[in-house]
């Protein structure tokens, strides 16, 4: 091995925020990956094992910056990936590739195999035209797919062949490092062995380094040089593959190993069956994260988080039992003795505390449930939290009632108050959301309606007033008829300085004055309206 690690991960952390409500209030974080560190050497395969939810996939993606890590450092061949610009990162990605689990969804069904594999070559300017086709065929031959299939579509292949195509795509750019994310988990046993053998052959032929992520311990053991065991976002043990299986140090590793169903019917006994399930990473247990399920947990475990303890060359673990065993040649016997002793002690204790399930089991069950009910970590008692919630709910209902009764302003104020209470008290589920939205809608409708009708009424009143004034003016005018057309004109101008008024439908009010005839007398017949539909206000002389 060379002196410089190819990949060096330090304190890598990825938290996914948990948000709630319309405003995306942050109520917590899923601590998917929490401070993991390891090195990967050239030509080495590091296995990353863990149960679902342990953060192994997130770790793989955060390393490639396929998801942006929250904090921590990833150095690839000496360069800090987080500091790279988008363009530099794209260049760097030639050297870092990924193979996905599902060979059905990771290949674009509308692209021919030639384009799936050749896309990266083309984008990075490695080859085009006939040279590209030749390279694609060469890659296909390398992964054991006939080159003539390059013009086919993914659906024409079986699962194993698709995974081979995924592998060809990953090695197209001559990478140094490949993340294999459950790359063989979806395949049948006989096909899986083919693909594992292919991965090993390619590793030796192309000097690749793998980060081999899998939940299947026997596969990981087969392909890896070293293995990291993850539990709830942390690496609890990291050791050489053979060493890990021979001398597992962490109680979690021990139970994981004993849970593997071996294809050997004579090997039925001695299972360390763990109680309970993996707790939620939303609110991981205090201290050592494994203490809720650990058969060898003791007082210290829930209180302080264990340090990383170096047990020997390439063997680290995070367990209080290993405390003080650094550099001790006989560490395994001593550790085994400590763990077994504590297990017996715990069993005895569980038996003593009468029948209802052993104590660690109860604890483990109680915890995930409590966290599920209250994801934000506020130490409210149930009653204290219920009070503002009831108040808020009452406000919403009263507000709705007020709206129905027509007191829309009061209603709006009440609903608003409910939301203020909810937000201030940080209730996780303050109000039935649909009632709130419904109330807001009703309010909005009522408000806009009220505003509209208000303005319509005001306008109508103005118009009527104006009309009344005109009529009044006309009446006055009619009592003293004008002596000439000019005077009539002036009078008209005085009455309608802005031209003639219209009614709300845009029809003109026609001023129909009794105009004088040639003799200067006023006839009862006025001029006809300008337009047919104009209103004619006739006032008898």
């Amino acid at each position: 091995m060379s002196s410089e690690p190819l990949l060096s991960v330090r304190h890598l952390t990825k938290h996914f925020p948990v948000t709630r409500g319309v405003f995306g209030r942050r109520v917590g974080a899923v601590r998917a990956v929490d401070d993991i560190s390891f090195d990967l050497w050239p030509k080495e395969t590091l296995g990353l094992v863990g149960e679902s939810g342990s953060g192994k996939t997130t770790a793989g993606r955060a390393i490639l910056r396929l998801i942006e890590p929250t904090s921590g450092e990833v150095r690839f061949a000496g360069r800090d990936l987080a500091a790279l610009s988008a363009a530099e990162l794209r260049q760097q990605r030639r050297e870092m590739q990924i193979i996905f689990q599902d060979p059905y969804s990771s290949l674009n069904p509308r692209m021919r195999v030639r384009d799936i594999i050749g896309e990266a070559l083309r984008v990075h300017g490695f080859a085009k035209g006939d040279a590209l086709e030749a390279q694609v065929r060469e890659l296909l031959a390398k992964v054991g797919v006939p080159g003539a299939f390059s013009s086919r579509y993914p659906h024409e292949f079986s699962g194993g062949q698709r995974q081979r195509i995924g592998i060809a795509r990953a090695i197209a750019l001559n990478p140094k490092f490949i993340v294999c994310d459950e790359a063989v988990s979806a395949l049948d046993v006989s096909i899986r062995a083919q693909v594992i053998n292919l991965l090993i052959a390619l590793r030796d032929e192309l000097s690749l380094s793998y980060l081999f992520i899998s939940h299947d311990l026997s596969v990981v053991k087969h392909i890896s040089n070293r293995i990291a065991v993850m539990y709830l976002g942390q690496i609890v043990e990291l050791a050489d593959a053979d060493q890990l299986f021979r001398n597992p140090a962490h109680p979690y590793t021990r139970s994981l190993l004993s849970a593997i169903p071996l294809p050997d019917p004579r090997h039925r006994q001695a299972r360390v069956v763990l109680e309970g399930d993996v707790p939620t990473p939303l609110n991981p247990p205090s201290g050592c994260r494994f203490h809720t399920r650990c058969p060898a947990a003791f007082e210290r475990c829930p209180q302080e988080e264990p340090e990383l303890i170096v047990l020997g060359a390439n063997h680290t673990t995070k367990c209080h039992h290993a405390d003080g065993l650094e550099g001790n040649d006989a560490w395994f016997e001593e550790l085994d003795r400590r763990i077994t002793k504590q297990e017996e002690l715990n069993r005895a204790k569980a038996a003593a505390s009468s029948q209802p399930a052993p104590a660690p089991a109860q604890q483990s069950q109680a915890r995930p449930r409590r966290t599920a009910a209250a994801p934000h970590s506020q130490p409210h008692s149930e009653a204290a939290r219920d009070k503002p919630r009831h108040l808020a709910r009452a406000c919403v209902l009263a507000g709705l009632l007020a709206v129905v009764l027509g007191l829309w302003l009061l209603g709006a104020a009440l609903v608003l108050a409910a939301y203020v209470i909810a937000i201030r008290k940080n209730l996780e589920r303050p109000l039935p959301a649909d009632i709130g939205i419904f109330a807001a809608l009703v309010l909005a409708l009522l408000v806009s309606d009220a505003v509209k009708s208000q303005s319509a009424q005001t306008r109508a009143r103005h118009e009527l007033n104006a009309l009344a004034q005109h009529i009044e003016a006309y009446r006055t005018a009619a009592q003293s008829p004008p002596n000439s057309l000019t005077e009539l004109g002036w009078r008209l101008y005085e009455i309608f300085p802005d031209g003639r008024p219209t009614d709300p439908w845009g029809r003109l009010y026609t001023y129909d004055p009794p105009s004088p005839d040639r003799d200067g007398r006023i006839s009862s017949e006025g001029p006809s309206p300008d337009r047919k539909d104009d209103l004619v206000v006739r006032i008898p002389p």
Partner: protein
Amino acid sequence: MTPEALLSVRDLKVQFRTDDGLVRAVDGVSFDVLPGKTLALVGESGCGKSVTAMSILRLIESQGGIIAGGSIEFQGRNLLELDAASMRRVRGNDIAMIFQEPMTSLNPVYTIGNQISEVLRWHRGLSEQEARAETIRLLELVHMPDPRQRVDEYPHQLSGGMRQRVMIAMALSCEPLLLIADEPTTALDVTVQAQILELMQELQQRLHMAVLLITHDLGVVAGNADDVAVMYAGRIVEHASVFELFDAPKHPYTAGLLASLPQLDHRATLVPIAGSVPDASRLPPGCAFHPRCRFRMSECSEKEPELLPLKGHGQRTTACFYTQKEPDADLTQSLRMQEEEEGPR
């Protein structure tokens, strides 16, 4: 036919009509399940193991399957001749089934208590209170933590392992004589899988049930089964006790499966089976495995081998011309040697 068999399937044939023509998903399968024993049906995806299980409960007809022949005798009655009402009594009462994906097998809008009591009230005629008490007892039996609270929870509030416990509780509610477990732990994590398998073994002993375990995982088979039937392309290719099978597989397919598993104690090269499982609508002539077989002979592509007892090996049977000719050949050893000669790929 063994007289003491609880379930005895003879020459079962199940077909599906598809656009590609008639697909023989199960083609002449015969096996017996003895009371209190576990028979494992092993095979890769598409080999017909789940279809066989569904046919026993006659659930396959609603999935478009046609039971084209054979008999399924349970306690002396042929299940294929029962009417719908008597079949409904058999399901749940005498034969129960648990499925791979517990989330899709549970109704999300009813509490788990509701769903278990429904079985109890239908099949055992209990009153509402009695059913509830019995439900809590069953949940205790499957080691559900806090059964009194859990009984009122909905499936989404439970983890995968707990859901599978609920499925088992439901399956056990009528104390069936036979439990069909179709990939019961495939969707679960290793540690939870160990819990569920442990639980199933414990309950099997306590209730003296027979179990038909359907799985693709040879590790699960080795740890839980008494007898094993290996299926390939709709047929049983080898049937043996679990020790016989893992000690010395006598069908090239079984040997190939075992050789392609990574070993924990030593790092040997994996010997994969070349090629892939054939399309069920276009099976090769003769023995369906012959294109992938390293021991094939000229007659393999001409006629189908029958499942026959091996000379000098007691009860165990295989469907292979090669091992019937050479019953003592060490297939695993020759596979390894051939692999070394030919090299990988």
